[in-house]
């Protein structure tokens, strides 16, 4: 199961936050480690070798951080590593020299994240300037010695 104590706020690394799961129990839109990368599963199909063979699962995943595509195939009885993925919604309080002030539901503020240099970042800035109310969702996963995150915009709750 997911490690509930994974505290990414400290940006700590090294905690191998994966857990095993039988390949056949993976689901499309779920997560899996493919070729050493944490991926979101975008395609899943099964096949077998010969009529009396056992099922094999063919997986196609998109690296959640780099958007690169990975493919893998494994017997459906095998266990695959599933990365722990965590998501927290924040309210954007301020942007200061490209760093965001984010407030979580329980009032904690963190200011260690830059406005990302991409489409989402631009949208965050323009919405912020327009004074719109919106949430920033932080999806983070750590894998091996790497820590990374992605941001989503979402409607205020």
């Amino acid at each position, binding site marked *: 199961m997911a490690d509930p104590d994974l505290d990414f706020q400290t940006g700590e690394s090294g905690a191998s936050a994966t857990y095993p799961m039988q390949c056949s129990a993976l689901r499309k839109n779920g997560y899996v480690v493919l070729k050493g990368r944490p991926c979101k599963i975008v395609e899943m199909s099964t096949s077998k070798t010969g*009529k009396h063979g056992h*099922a094999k699962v063919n997986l196609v995943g998109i690296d959640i951080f780099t958007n690169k595509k990975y493919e893998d195939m494994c017997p459906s009885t095998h266990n695959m590593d599933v990365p722990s993925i965590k998501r927290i919604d924040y309210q954007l309080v301020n942007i200061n020299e490209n760093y965001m002030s984010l407030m979580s539901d329980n009032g904690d503020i963190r200011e260690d994240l830059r406005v990302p240099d991409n489409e989402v970042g631009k949208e965050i800035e323009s919405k912020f300037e327009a004074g719109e109310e919106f949430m920033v969702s932080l999806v983070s996963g750590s894998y091996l010695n790497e820590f990374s995150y992605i941001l989503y915009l979402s409607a205020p709750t």
Partner: protein
Amino acid sequence: KQKKKQNSIHLCSVLKLTLFCVLQAPPSMVSTEQRQHAEHVFLSFRKSKSPFAICKHILETSKVDYVLFQAATAIMEAVVREWILLEKTSIESLRAFLLTYVLQRPNLQKYVREQILLAVAVIVKRGSLDKSINCKSILLEVGQLISSLSPTVPPVLYALLTYSLYCSLTHEDGLRQIFMMTMEVLQEFSRRENLNAQMSSVFQRYLALANHVLSWNFLVVLLPLLLFLLLFMLLLALTGGDSLGRHYIAMFEATQNVTLKPTESWREALLDTRVMDLFFTVHRKIREDSDMAQDSLQCLAQLASMHGPVFPDENAQISYLAHLMEGLLSMINGIEIEDSEAVGISNIISNLITMFPRSILTALPSDLFTSFINCLTLLTCSFGRSAALEEVLDKDDMVYMEAYDKLLESWLTLVQDEEHFPRGCFVQPAIQVFNSYIQCHLAAPDGTRNLSVNGISSHDEEEINELQEDDRELFSDQLSSIGMLGRVAADHCIPLLTSLLEDRVTRLHGQLQRTQQHLMASSDLGSVDRKVLDDLYEDIHWLILVSGYLLADDPQGETPLIPSEVMEFSIKHSTEVDINTTLQILGSPGEKASSIPGCNRTDSVIRLLSAVLRTSEVESRATRANLTELLSPQMGKDIVWFLRRWAKTYLLVDEKLYGQISIPLSTAFGADTEGAQWIVGYLLEKVINNLTVWSSEAELAYDTVELLVTLVEKRERANIVVQCESWWNLAKQFASRSPPLHLLSSSVQRTLMKALVLGGFAQMDSDAKQQYWAEVLHPLQQRFLNLINQENFAQISQEEAVKQEIVATLEALCGIAEATQIDNVASLFSFLMDFLSSCIGLMEVYSNTPETINLIIEVFVEVAHKQICYLGETKSMKLYEACLTLLQVYSKNNQSRKRSDATAEEDQYQDLLLIMELLTNLLSKEFIDFSDTDDVFRNQDQGTPASNRTVSAADVVLYGVNIVLPLMSQDLLKFPSLCNQYYKLITFICEIFPEKIPQLPEDLFKSLMFSLELGMTSMSSEISQLCLEALSPLAEQCAKNQEKDSPLFIATRHFLKLVFDMLVLQKHNTEMTVAAGEALYTLVCLHQAEYSELVETLLSSQRDAIIYQRLADAFNKLTASSTPPTMDRKQKVAFLKSLEEFVANVGGLLCVK
């Protein structure tokens, strides 16, 4: 003056035409624009008015083939377009001109000649519609031409034949004359002996040229073919009606399934035995040419399907059939069948077996019938073997497989009517066919599976993807026939299957043990030779499939009965049977059957089941010995598939359903027997073991859980199931989501939930029942409520584990809804309703997770789908309200959602599709309603008076449409499933609640009307038809309301113009004429003045006085039978009839530029 001007314009265009065509010759010298311009010139030339004189001129003077072709096309199109404007005499002379033209120019290019003949044919065909052309005179003309013919000018003959065929296609009487004429021509030719040598050399030249493509040129040079192909065409024409195609192959395919039913007038011609003989003779001559052989056999197949008034009495039919059979037998016996003949021959046999009444078949001389059956038997076995070979070689074109299928189907037809035939006459043939089938599917040495011609076995491990159908579906037709033949020869087949299966199981057991020892020594799985195992698995696979099809049927929706042959077989031998030994064999699947004393005195039907149970036991034991990796999931599927099929039919056999019952069967499987209880327990263990071991094999797990559903869906079986402890364990285990059940795929989990709910309605004392629900449903509710009521639910909701829990709950809810039956709907509905409102709350939480949103909507879809038809008023209203809230939340969440991703896939619009499905399900209440409030909800519904009604189906649906409509862009309508569902929904709404349409908010009303217009004008004909069907109820609604200024009234006026234009001015699909006609009629009733105006406007735009008059006449005729138009069925029908004529007459005319 005007005419002159026109002529000059035409001449000019002709010049251009020629010019461009000359230019066209060296392609490198022509630019794309020039070519396009030339094409444009041709197109407009073809649309020009009365181009006849010009065309004649072109035909007479031009030397460019392409221009000639265009001129012929122009004539053809113009004649049809301006038919009613032309004088009959000028049409006649035009036709004569074209025919003479072709006859005088034997060296025309083939495509030009064909086009000109097609023009002639079209003229004849159009003429036959209003009887303005005398078919007889044409035929006479042709006949004279034929008799004056010299055989040295084949193209002319060719042209004539083509032409006369075109004529004949339009007129049956003409057809017969052609037929007779052909006979004469044939005799004429056959008298000239010196022709043959010359002909055959010409034939060979043509053969090379034609490169094995059947062309008309053959028949001019090879005499028997002439008759053959002509007759062939005639038969096609006879059977296919008026398909006027130049490419007879297309006709051939279109008419393949049409049977020959000529009128009485054909009696003399077709009952003449020489005609049939000729076909056999012809076939013998040309059978080596595969293309032609197919055609000649198809001809014979047509003759074999002959029925109807052509036969004066039964005797005529008998002697016709006898002659056909004799011909067929002597043909088959005298030859070695070519690959290309297999399908054709099987078609002949299949047709004669299907079409001739049993009484005729049995009235045949018994020698003949016996030889026929023997021949059919040999042929079936031989085609079966060849089909197996085709599979080994992995051929693309499986001709023997197709032929084998056909013959097996014929056997099925025969043995289903067994009582008409002499008793036992099919037993020996059945044994032979059955044996050969088994042989083809078993490995050597017993069988010949995978053996190619030279006896070498092939064994390859190909990749098989999940889309490939299981053999039990793929070959279900074959297996049904084989199963049926097995029943006919049950004495032979059931013991055979039993001993083969027992033998394979023993061998499998031994092989697994040896492999286990081998593994203990080396522990490397890769070193195991799977060949022996795989061969055994494949043998067992087929033996189980055949056993399943033999022992039981799988009728959809009815209670399957033990086949009477099987029952009789068991009864017949019951005196020799020792019941105790039988039960012992049944109850000890772990032991070798042959090791049990007295095993020869067992009931064979039970013994066959026992053999499958033994297979199952070997499998289960292997999984316990950790040999799962060596097992075949396919075999696992076969076992549970068989057990399910068997259980439906035999388990707790109901004696009341049978005239007589076999004592062994009722003792072993009857109600209140130990045997039945034992089996239920055994099957349950099997299910649980499979779900534990095979969670990684989705299909096997699914088949397994389906077996479980079968065990509990019938109350009697469920009563035994719930007495088993393992059932309760399964329920608890699943409710606690503990491993390994949580590994199962979502569809398996859903179905497992369904089974657990169904089981809960079995007979239990009230304590037990309470406890059961407390263990099955309550944990689900509890876990769910605990989770969503957590204070920090919003925060943790996106965690994978939480999401998984939510998804599992939603899947379970779908499963619960699927378990709905009339007698449990009351409690299930209440249970589900409690969840529905919580689910709506989840819509907010998971608004960013489309797959969860879809699952939530799916719960609603399932509840509506399974339950709405049983719900009384109050309950329905509750569901409507819930659905309404769901839609409101959905709408709120989707307002800001962008759906402009150009690369989006169809499944990203799953939510829309589901919502439309939900709405359609809610609407279905309006026409499928089993609700009997008092009965189903006696204790709960305290009859709320109707006046308190707050929400109606219409409100919800219209609200839903309000949400869906703005989201449905034209781009989305390009996805077929969305488009179909959408139009299905809006047509439903218009048909069911036309009164609600005028009350819609303006925007919604407008977009609905726009959707209808769009669907009518720019979608597929199917959608267009749906929209047209929606118009009549709308128009009727307006007529009821009498409000002249309402938006709907105005909209229908607009639709009047649309439909009017569609029918009168545009080319449209003829299938749509009826739907459009009905819509037009109701619209005309509503807007009579506007209709007259439309007609006036159209007429006034016609400058040509003749056209004006003809048009006006046509319009008058159209409404003559229905003036003044009223919404009356009779008048409507009359209108539709005149509309057909109207469209034929005026349709093309108004398309003139």
